[in-house]
């Protein structure tokens, strides 16, 4: 077979190919080093200029130098020649370098094969929803380029129609296969190609560390409630119990070690389920006092919640918790002491103030109430960008007596300090508060900007009690931005219908978009074994082992092959003239009655022959023939639909008559 592999590439095909390549490269603009994009632009420019001005190909030594220098640059960029990032960017770099020596159609086909890998690695790098759209469009671009290779001179419209047809057929079938293809619970191997940037707070709280999250709109977790819906609740993350005069950190607690949470009988037994985005940390968020959960988790009131294997959350992680009121448990002496820790020289004024307040108050509860009252009465401001309080161990003095403005971490830090100085065990809790209730999809969406810090103090005989100092600040002294942010949260679900009426169209659109986003993410991006089993159960098929699922999948693939082949075969046969079919039916009957049906025999001759053989039919045959001649042979418009219909019924009548003989 002749393969047109050494043919030159026409200019229109070349520009088409360069456009397709450029599109496939788009996601790499975010991840690849800047000079790689520059290389891409230069390679495209060189190739186009080469075509316009008929430049001779680059010398071999020059090409070798370019290749070696690109490899060296990549090696320097990533510090190694054996990392995922190096290989991916090397692939992309050679993808662009190849177009420098893109001469024949065969070279172009090699590049098209490369684009498939380029698309694949983009999917590995970008676990975002838009990557699906990118993938489908990039594949479409590739299909259009392949079509262009076959039909180099036709216009874009002629290529676009079949491309679209391919996609419209392929996407639904692929989705079906996608949902049924068996998933494993754990990947066979996993190479972390690039650690995503850290999001959320880290182990250390300093003034300003929570406030900077206020601008971050990204979702931390989504909560689905199985029993009562808890809005405006405090989601515990990290317990901070050590203060060094500058920042709060977490020390291993000296009481209540981490204990495995008893597993739940089924997932529905959980009070709420959390879908946590990867945050590259070990801690999990919870609300209330967890007494059971899935999957395997461990918990202690002093350390918080984490996976039983203690692994960092690198992938989206789903877990469910059952909560119950905690029974009272006395604080051990060691733990008591641990939660009174303070650096000796830090904030002397605040320490003195705390002692004075302590002496004024009859008990711990009254002391806390006094402090809160003080915050309410004095000109304390709740600010996103408060005045600087310095970076030494007198910063809380400055905050409490001089600047008097801060974000939640300032208040939590100062109040914990005061309580500790007054001899009450206290600690800072980092987590999230509030979140946005999505009434359409019925889940609570908690974002980074909901990050919050508050205080827990020990109340003998009751246990740890939460106090949120920022909630006592007078409303008039709160930043407008913070008020606006919190307004959305303070909506009662029962008033939702009323609320919906008051909501702007934009707001409603945003909520719908968020629901859709969540839905697609759950069903497309993070579709996993668990969800697959859920889907199968919902379809009434029940839990299936993956082996069985694979068999079923292969079976349906084969079935689809057969159906597709049948469809194409039928498409071939479909345009059959019904009149011709009826005529052939008559001919069949005639040949059964031993009348000649080979070509020279006309219908008239056949009728005559049959009439000879079976005289009793003569009249009927004669009539039919006359009618046929009237319909088909005499009139000029014998192909008029009315005539055709009449002829059709005549043939049918005739074959019915003959069949009885």
């Amino acid at each position, binding site marked *: 077979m002749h393969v047109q592999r050494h043919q030159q590439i026409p200019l229109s095909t070349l520009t088409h190919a360069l456009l397709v390549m450029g599109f496939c490269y788009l996601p790499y603009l975010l991840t690849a080093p800047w000079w790689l994009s520059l290389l891409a632009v230069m390679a495209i420019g060189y190739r186009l200029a080469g075509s316009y001005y008929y430049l001779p190909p680059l010398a071999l030594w020059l090409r070798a130098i370019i290749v070696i220098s690109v490899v060296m640059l990549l090696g320097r960029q990533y510090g190694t020649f054996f990392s995922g990032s190096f290989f991916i960017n090397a692939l992309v770099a050679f993808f662009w370098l190849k177009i420098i020596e893109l001469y024949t159609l065969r070279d172009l086909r090699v590049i098209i094969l490369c684009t498939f890998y380029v698309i694949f690695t983009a999917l590995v790098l970008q676990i975002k929803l838009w990557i699906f759209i990118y993938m489908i469009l990039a594949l479409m671009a590739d299909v259009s380029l392949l079509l262009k290779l076959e*039909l180099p001179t036709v216009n874009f419209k002629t290529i676009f129609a079949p491309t679209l047809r391919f996609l419209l057929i*392929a996407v639904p079938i692929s989705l079906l296969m*996608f949902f049924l293809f068996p998933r494993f619970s754990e990947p066979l191997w*996993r190479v972390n190609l690039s650690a995503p940037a850290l999001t959320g707070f880290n182990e250390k709280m300093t003034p300003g560390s929570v406030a900077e999250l206020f601008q971050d709109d990204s979702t931390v977790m989504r909560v689905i409630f199985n029993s009562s819906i808890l809005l405006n609740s405090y989601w515990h993350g990290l317990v901070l119990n050590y203060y060094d005069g500058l920042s709060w950190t977490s020390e291993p607690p000296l009481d209540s070690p981490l204990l495995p949470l008893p597993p739940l009988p089924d997932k529905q037994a959980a009070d709420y389920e959390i879908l946590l985005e990867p945050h590259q940390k070990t801690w999990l968020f919870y609300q209330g006092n967890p007494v059971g959960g899935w999957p395997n988790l461990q918990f202690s009131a002093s350390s918080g919640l984490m996976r039983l294997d203690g692994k960092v959350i690198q992938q989206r992680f789903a877990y469910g918790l059952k909560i119950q009121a905690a029974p009272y448990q006395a604080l051990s002496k060691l733990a008591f002491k641990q939660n009174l820790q303070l650096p000796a020289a830090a904030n002397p004024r605040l320490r003195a103030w705390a002692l004075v307040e302590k002496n004024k108050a009859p008990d711990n509860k009254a002391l806390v109430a006094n402090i809160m009252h003080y915050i309410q009465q004095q000109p304390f401001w709740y600010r996103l960008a408060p005045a600087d309080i310095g970076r030494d161990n007198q910063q809380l003095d400055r905050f409490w007596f001089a600047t008097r403005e801060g974000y939640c971490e300032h208040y939590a830090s100062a109040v914990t300090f005061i309580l500790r100085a007054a001899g009450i065990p206290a600690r800072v809790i980092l987590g999230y508060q509030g979140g946005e209730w999505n009434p359409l999809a019925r889940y609570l969406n908690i974002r980074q900007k909901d990050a919050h810090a508050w205080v827990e103090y020990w109340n003998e005989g009751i246990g740890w009690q939460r106090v949120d100092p920022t909630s006592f600040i007078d409303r008039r002294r709160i930043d407008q931005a913070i008020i606006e942010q919190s307004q959305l949260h303070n909506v009662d679900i029962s008033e939702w219908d009323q609320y919906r009426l008051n909501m702007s169209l934009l707001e409603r659109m945003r909520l719908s978009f968020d629901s859709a986003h969540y839905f697609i993410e759950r069903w497309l991006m993070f579709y996993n074994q668990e969800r697959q089993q859920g889907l199968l159960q919902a379809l009434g098929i029940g839990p299936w082992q993956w082996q069985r699922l694979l068999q079923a999948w292969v079976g349906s693939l084969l079935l689809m092959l057969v159906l597709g082949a049948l469809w194409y075969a039928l498409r071939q046969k479909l345009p059959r003239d019904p009149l011709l079919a009826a005529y052939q039916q008559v001919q069949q009957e005639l040949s059964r009655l031993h009348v000649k049906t080979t070509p020279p025999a006309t219908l008239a001759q056949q009728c005559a022959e049959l009439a000879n053989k079976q005289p009793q039919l003569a009249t009927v045959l004669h009539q039919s023939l006359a009618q046929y001649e009237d319909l088909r042979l005499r009139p000029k418009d014998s192909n008029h639909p009315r005539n055709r219909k009449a002829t059709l019924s005549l043939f049918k009548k005739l074959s019915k008559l003959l069949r009885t003989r």
Partner: protein
Amino acid sequence: MSATIHAMFRQWLQRWIQARNPVSNPRHLTARTIFILPSAFGWAYGIVFVTITTGAVNYQLNAAFLLVFLLLIIGLLSMWETHHNLQGLTIQCLAVENTQQGQPARVRLLLTGKKSMRQAVIFCFREGEPVKLQQLAADGDQIVLSVQTPQRGCFQLPLLQIYSYYPLGIFCAWSYARFNIEYYVYPQAMFPGFWPATTAGQNLQQSGSFMGDEELYELKSVTSPWNQPGRIAWKVSARGQGWYLKTMTSPAGENWLFRIEDLIGNDIELNLQQLSYWIQQAEQLGHRYGLQLRGAHTEISQGEQHMQDCLRQLATY
């Protein structure tokens, strides 16, 4: 041992293909006669597919799963489309022109596809130049293929391959057509430098020199001179009084009988080429002529049909 098995297999394959491709004109391509296999690009596409599948399974990457399934479905669809592109195509060989050795024989094919438009179908005679038809309308089209003619003689049309990579080049569907049509390749014309004696003693002495002598012609007015372009009297016609053809002055004198014995030398091929020249030249000049080969001779006549008969004799000598 393996060589014989190989030969046997080839023979069997040849028979199998021939059984499926009976000689017929017109040739109708059906599912039984269309073969399909992945092209070289298709095999590479398969390798890409397998590697990406491995990656998707190992990473449990949903987007990659979708990519893999899309690639698979696109591949399958293109397989059916490629097959469908050829199915139902009818190829009718209209005519093959006899031709001079060295010049390609032109084969005119009529292509009709029952239904939709067919794209990028390639036609190629074995060892011939392929012709790609980008779009073939449903109501038919004509193409001209050429067959190389390195040797003179009478030949059967070689096997015609019809193939297509459309739409994506992943699969190649092909079929064969065999036509029971012969064509003649006659020897290339070559002037021996002289003309033979005319028959029946009517010798034309000036035969070697009459070529340039315009005075020896009479003019004949015609409406369309283009079937004998060599005989147009350009100078006269250019004056603008219609077309004139040159005819011989003495119509009685030019009854030629060309014989191979009249030529010098023992190179038969060369002699045949020279005979070919005489015949074609005489026809163009409007003379009556005949050909004598191996003792048998044709009648003395003229006209296109007569020339073709003579040339065919030369072709098969």
